[in-house]
């Protein structure tokens, strides 16, 4: 039943000043890249990628950006949230050398895929970009797995610059079979274009406004009616290349087009 099940939070971990992880019990199988709809009773229900897949537990990891995430941020062990899912599809690991590129909280969505790639014995490079040092998280976790490169807009940690610039260098050095990315759409779009030029396998986890999570309301559509909540959130390069709106505009909760600023 695609219906919220209410569970008790088992653990809360603070990842940085604005980011926390919330753990809850979950036993069925989940693919890295899938997400849950998280109900904060009386406030909202919002999509959150699974950020850790443990034995009998999973976590979501989120940044405080508004009403619902603010409330989640204040929650503690024992508090109750609704979970609906896992929804959507997952990442597919392809080839031997995988480049992961995360911008902002995007690392939350791809971290389980990095775990999986590691399990499969792949060569892994992870690029994490953030505005500033204090927005970074999951660094220790990633460092243990593969080659980690950190980029910040202000140079307060790692290289100064954009994650997409670092990604570009790596892709152009012909050292990767596949790129997996999650972050600001303009960043993902730039990386998509790079991968298309060089025929590198590409997958991105895309964000759209999610309402029903049932594939009905159509709110989350991209391209020719592809539903982020069903056919996504992970799309491959071929598919996204056909989506005229990808990297161009998203839709707000009324369905109006909101054009992306180049950034």
């Amino acid at each position, binding site marked *: *039943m*695609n*219906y*919220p*099940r*209410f569970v008790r939070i088992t653990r809360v971990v603070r990842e940085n000043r604005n980011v926390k992880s919330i753990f809850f019990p979950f036993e069925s199988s989940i693919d890295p890249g899938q997400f849950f*709809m998280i*109900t904060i*009773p*009386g*406030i*909202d*229900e*919002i999509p959150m990628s699974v950020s850790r897949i443990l034995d009998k537990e999973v976590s979501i990891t989120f940044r405080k950006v508004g009403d619902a995430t603010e409330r989640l941020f204040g929650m503690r062990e024992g508090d*109750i949230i*609704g979970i*609906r899912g896992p929804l959507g599809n997952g990442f597919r690991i392809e080839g031997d050398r995988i480049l992961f590129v995360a911008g902002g909280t995007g690392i939350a969505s791809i971290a389980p895929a990095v775990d999986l790639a590691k399990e499969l014995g792949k060569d892994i490079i992870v690029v994490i970009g953030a505005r500033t040092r204090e927005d970074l998280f999951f660094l220790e976790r990633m460092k243990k797995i593969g080659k980690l490169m950190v980029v910040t807009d202000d140079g307060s940690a790692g290289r100064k610059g954009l994650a997409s610039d670092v990604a570009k260098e790596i892709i152009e050095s012909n050292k990767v079979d596949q790129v997996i990315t999650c972050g600001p759409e303009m960043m993902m779009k730039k990386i998509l274009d790079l991968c298309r030029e060089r025929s590198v396998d590409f997958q991105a986890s895309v964000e759209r406004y*999610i*309402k*029903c*999570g*049932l*594939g*009905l*309301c*159509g*709110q989350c*559509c*991209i*391209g*020719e*009616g*592809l*539903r982020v909540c069903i056919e996504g959130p992970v799309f491959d390069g071929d598919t996204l290349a056909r989506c005229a*709106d990808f990297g161009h505009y998203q*839709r*707000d*909760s*009324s*369905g*109006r*087009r909101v054009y992306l600023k180049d950034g």
Partner: protein
Amino acid sequence: MLEIEISGLRLRNPTMLASGVMGECSGSLIRAYRSGAGAVVTKSIGLEPREGYPNPTAVEIECGILNSMGLPNPGIDEFGEEMREVVELEIPVIGSIFAGDAESFSILAKRMQGYGACAIELNLSCPHARGYGLEIGTDPDLVRGIVKEVKRSVSIPVFSKISANVADIVEIGKAVEEGGGDGIVAINSVKAMKIDLSTKKPILFNRFGGYSGRGIKPIGVRCVYELASEIEIPIIGAGGVEKGEDAIEYILAGAKAVQVGSAIFYRGIDVFRKICKEMEEWMERNGYSSIEDFRGLALK
């Protein structure tokens, strides 16, 4: 063998994408058509953009879907772009509109006609939006007036989507007919509620929602049968159409076409193609070569 004609529209088959389901943007309307729908109906569009209600707005329940989206839509101005992209592919698209009074309905209808809609669908039946839908659609006089006014404003067919949440649906159907309406769509989702036992509160943010899917089919079929017994204008059945057999049941009750919404959740977007195939198989087994061969047989 599935082609139909309804109020002058010729459609390749009698299945339509129901309003509010994958109908808010050009891409999803196009996809539904390419997945086999005979026509597609847009999300109900109003004069102004609306964000709809906060989540949860939709959940699966035992015998169907419960939703209370709250009529989110980009507003008629911005919707032109979506329509253009659909219409330029020559897809028969029916523009669903909602408003609080006859004048606003007329303005919206004219805009939709201008955008190239092949017909208008008046949403007189949304079960969960204050001041719209059901709150208007239960008053025969209001209904008659709105239909009349809209008919005066446009030249394309005007369908009225009505609700089972009335004491006598035939009375509303007759008001549509008297107003000069070209057809009736019955039914919209049924006003309902699910209370969650963990939170002890209604599960939907808006508390009340509209119940759709297989659980309402017996109500929808009854409404179409009642309407078809007393009304001349064509009827489009909706509510729980999931399989070819469900579509056939509505057609036996007198419907000329059916709309499909929730079944997309259960059977995927190519549910239109599946339903059409199942209908054809049944028609072949029963020796029918066109929809009109068996339409309304249950009424006789």
